[in-house]
Structures are given as structure tokens and as C-alpha cells.
């Protein structure tokens, strides 16, 4: 059979476009979903996309090729070189920007706090509020006379807000706004999904829709939560009861699984550690796991996997392999 009969030109082209788009690292949540949808639509789409990835990997084997390296050497110089007059203009521009930035900073100073993988940080804010940052998270804090603004750029944070009706406390996350008076609540931004859960007080969630219009999604009471795709909130927000123990488990450096698929549980566990667990093969991927584990305690989790699923564990310095047991 001729291959062309299987994957036609247009599928190939679409796969190349998607792959190039994905490489940009700038895909929105909606685009990620669209790609996922496209892949699921047709086995041929999956094949064409897999082949792009394969081509990409193969090119890596040419990294040491003398001819290509030689060309790259020349390119490197060219890419870095800037004509002198442009350099002067750039210096002038940088200077202007710096002056402007200094002026602007007086009005809009933003402090950033961030944690690396496995890190957590408690931050005391000027007004008596506190925020606790979970692993791999980053927030900007900007206080003005009229408003306390927090920008959750990635990851997850728990907020305990000092009450001040004159100065609302607003958490911004990927086009959404979570507004609070005196409350405690959790906001997580994970691969385009926003999750809000409230432990105390009242919280209002506003979100931008696909057209960029902002509207009120829901008011949440203690024990309630909301989850939706950033930038594409549902028409009718579905407020659900949340397991507060689960939502706040991370603050006590615990991780909580409730009948979770094993592959998801491992992905979750890996968010907290640089010594990643790797599930080899997909025999175990769909197994279900429940339990509470200490973050970073790989031994306990590995032991549990050994005991419950008969998994074989291969511990290395940099990663821990989980292999299906021999039947």
C-alpha cells in the first residue's frame, strides 16, 4: 500500500502547523484543547503528529554534524551582531525605559514571590494578609491605596486575607479575578485550568470569556469550589462541594490521592520534586490509588506501589523508575 493513501498532504501540513505551534511554547489553553481534539479525531492525525515529533528527534542526532555546526557558528555571530547605530538607538531606548520604569514604579510597584519545584513559601504582606505559595508557583503583589492586587502567574497559592472593605483583595489568574473580603481561599492555575476553593468567608469569581468580556461566574461560600478552563469559562458555572482537607493538604506538605489514576497521581507527585518518578510502560497507568503521602517522601510512595501493585522499583539518583511486576 502506498503511504500517501493513508496520510494525505493536508493532514501532514496540519500536523506540521500544530507541531510548530506547540514548539512556540505559547499555546493558549484553548489551543491545547483544540490540538487534543484534532489528535483524537482521527488516527491519521495522530500518526502525522507523531512523525513530526520523530523527525524533530532525529534532527537532534545531527547536532554534532560538522557541516551543520559550521553553519551554525556563522549564524550565531550573525544573530548576535547589531549595527552600531542601532546599538546606540537601543542604548538610548533602554535609558528612556529605565527612567520611565522608575517613575512608574513609584505608582505601580509589583513585588514578586516564587518557588521552585518542591519549594513552598509563606509570605506576610504589609496589610496583615498572608499567602502561602505551593511548589513551582509565582505571584506578583501590587498594593495601591484603592486595591490589593495579586497576580498568580503560575502554580497555586492559599490566601488568608485581612479584612478591609475599603480596599478589596483581588487575585488575578489568566484573565480571571477572584475577589475577597475577609476570607481564606485557594487558587490554583494548572495547565490552563483554574481552580478556586474557599475555606472561610465569601469569594466572588469573575472570568474573561472567549470574547475577552469579563463576567461574574459565581459567589463561593466555605467548602465550595469552582473549576474551569482559563479564558473559556462555562456559561453556567457549576459550583461544587470541595474536600477542604484535600485542597489544603499541600500546606502541611502532604499530598492527597482519592481514587486517582496512577499516572495522574505520579504526575502530581512529580510537581514537588526534581527526582521524578517515571512510570514505565502503561500497564499500571490506569490503576487507582488513594492515600495521603508526605511530599518528597519517595520511599513511602514507592513502597506502597510495590505492595499494592507488585510494581518493581528502580531507584536512581535522578529518577525513580516504576516498572510493572513480572507476572
Amino acid at each position, binding site marked *: *500500500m502506498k*503511504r*500517501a493513501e*493513508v496520510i494525505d498532504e493536508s493532514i*501532514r*501540513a496540519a500536523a*506540521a502547523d500544530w*507541531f*510548530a*505551534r506547540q*514548539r*512556540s*511554547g*505559547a499555546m493558549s489553553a484553548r489551543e491545547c484543547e483544540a490540538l487534543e481534539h484534532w489528535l483524537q479525531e*482521527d*488516527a*491519521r492525525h*495522530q*500518526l502525522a503528529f*507523531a*512523525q*513530526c515529533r*520523530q*523527525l*524533530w*528527534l*532525529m*534532527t*537532534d*542526532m*545531527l*547536532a554534532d*554534524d560538522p*557541516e*551543520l*555546526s559550521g*553553519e*551554525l557558528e556563522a*549564524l*550565531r555571530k550573525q*544573530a*548576535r551582531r547589531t549595527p552600531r547605530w542601532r546599538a546606540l538607538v537601543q542604548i538610548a531606548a533602554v535609558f528612556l525605559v529605565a527612567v520611565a520604569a522608575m517613575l512608574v514604579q513609584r505608582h505601580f510597584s509589583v513585588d514578586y514571590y516564587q518557588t521552585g519545584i518542591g519549594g513552598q513559601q509563606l509570605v506576610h504582606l504589609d496589610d496583615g494578609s498572608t499567602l502561602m505559595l505551593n511548589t513551582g508557583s509565582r505571584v506578583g503583589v501590587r498594593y495601591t491605596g484603592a486595591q490589593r492586587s495579586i497576580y498568580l502567574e503560575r502554580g497555586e497559592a492559599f490566601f488568608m486575607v485581612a479584612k478591609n472593605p475599603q480596599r478589596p483583595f483581588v487575585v488575578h489568574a489568566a484573565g480571571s479575578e477572584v475577589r475577597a473580603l475577609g476570607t481564606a481561599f485557594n487558587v490554583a492555575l494548572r495547565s490552563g485550568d483554574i481552580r478556586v476553593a474557599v475555606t472561610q468567608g465569601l469569594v466572588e469569581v469573575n472570568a474573561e470569556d472567549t470574547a475577552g468580556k469579563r463576567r461574574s461566574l459565581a459567589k463561593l461560600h466555605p467548602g465550595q469550589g469552582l473549576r474551569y478552563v482559563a479564558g473559556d469559562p462555562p456559561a453556567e458555572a457549576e459550583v461544587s462541594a470541595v474536600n477542604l482537607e484535600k485542597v489544603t493538604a499541600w500546606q502541611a506538605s502532604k499530598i492527597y490521592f482519592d*481514587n486517582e489514576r496512577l499516572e495522574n497521581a505520579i504526575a502530581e507527585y512529580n510537581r514537588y520534586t526534581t527526582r521524578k518518578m517515571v512510570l514505565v510502560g502503561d*500497564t499500571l497507568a*490506569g*490503576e*487507582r*490509588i*488513594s*492515600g*495521603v*503521602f*508526605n511530599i518528597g*517522601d519517595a520511599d*513511602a510512595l514507592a*513502597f*506502597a506501589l510495590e*505492595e*499494592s*501493585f507488585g510494581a518493581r522499583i528502580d531507584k536512581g539518583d535522578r529518577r525513580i523508575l516504576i516498572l510493572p511486576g513480572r507476572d
Partner: protein
Amino acid sequence: MARAKLRVVSSRPSAADGGTRAFVEELYSSYRGALCSYVARMLPGGQQDVEVILQETYVRLLRQEDLQPLRENPRAYIFTVATNLVRDSLRRHMRRRGDYHHRFEEQEHASPEPSPQGCAEWQQSLQRLKASLQGLKPVTRKIFLLSRYEEMSYPEIASALSISTRSVERHMSSALKHLQRELDDIL
């Protein structure tokens, strides 16, 4: 910490029944030949590695719960499974190569790194890939090389070449399309 109790709920599908097995077996054997040369061209390491991939492909097919996609488009489906396995294998191969390289430097050996041993088909594929890269239009090639080997981001490349990020993306896509066309009979 107290060892957490696990509630184990197995969702592993039961072993394929006879009918499924016969169906998969028949499909697999009709594509085995094509699959074999496909894998050999995409993967360094020779016949032994090819056999491993074929075996694993077969096992995965058997394990499928939903046979619908397999019925609808058997060839695309089977080749996707194989391509993904080849990809994983190539990643492992590169990691090994990286580790090897590392140890090598540590021990300060003077002899040059041996070229990766692979089957003839693979070497041939690599040479063709290289030729295709060299056949790209100059701007496109420049962008592809910077992205691939300099690991520059699209915005970085865009500002270095004074073009838009969007056009960097378009060039990347057309580079891939070029490779797809040139290596059509390998893919």
C-alpha cells in the same frame, strides 16, 4: 509517616478474548513487513531493537480496550503506536549517549567518541535528513537551526532576525513540511 493504606481498584482490561486476538493477529501480520522497514529506518541500533519495538507494538494492540479506531484505520493506528515506541526508544538512546559522553569526559580519554553504531538504514535516513535540511530555503534553514540546535525561543529568533514571532512559527512549519515531503518514503 504512617504508611498510607492504598485502596487498589484495578482497571486493567481482562486479557483479550479469542476473537480480538485473532483480529489483531491478522492485522499485525499483514502490516509486519512494512512496519519492520519503517521502524528500521527511524531507529538506530539495528535488527534487535526493531524486534523489540515490533513485539511491544503487538502487545499494545492486544491490550486495546476499544478496537474501533483500529478497525477504522488500522494502518495509521498501528504505525502511530510503533512511532511512539520508536520515539521513546530514540529518547533513551540519546540519554544513554549523553551519559556516555559525560562519563567519557570525566575519565579524560583522548580517543574520539565513536560514531553511534546503527544499522545501515538508519545511517542512510540520517544522511537524507541532513541533505533535506541543507535543501531548505536559507531563511527557513537559519530559523530551524537556531531553534533546534541553539535552543533559541521563537521570540529570541524573531528579534535576532527582525521578523515577527508568527513568521518564525511559519518558517518552522514549512521546514517540517519540507522534511515530510523529502522523507516521504521513510515516514
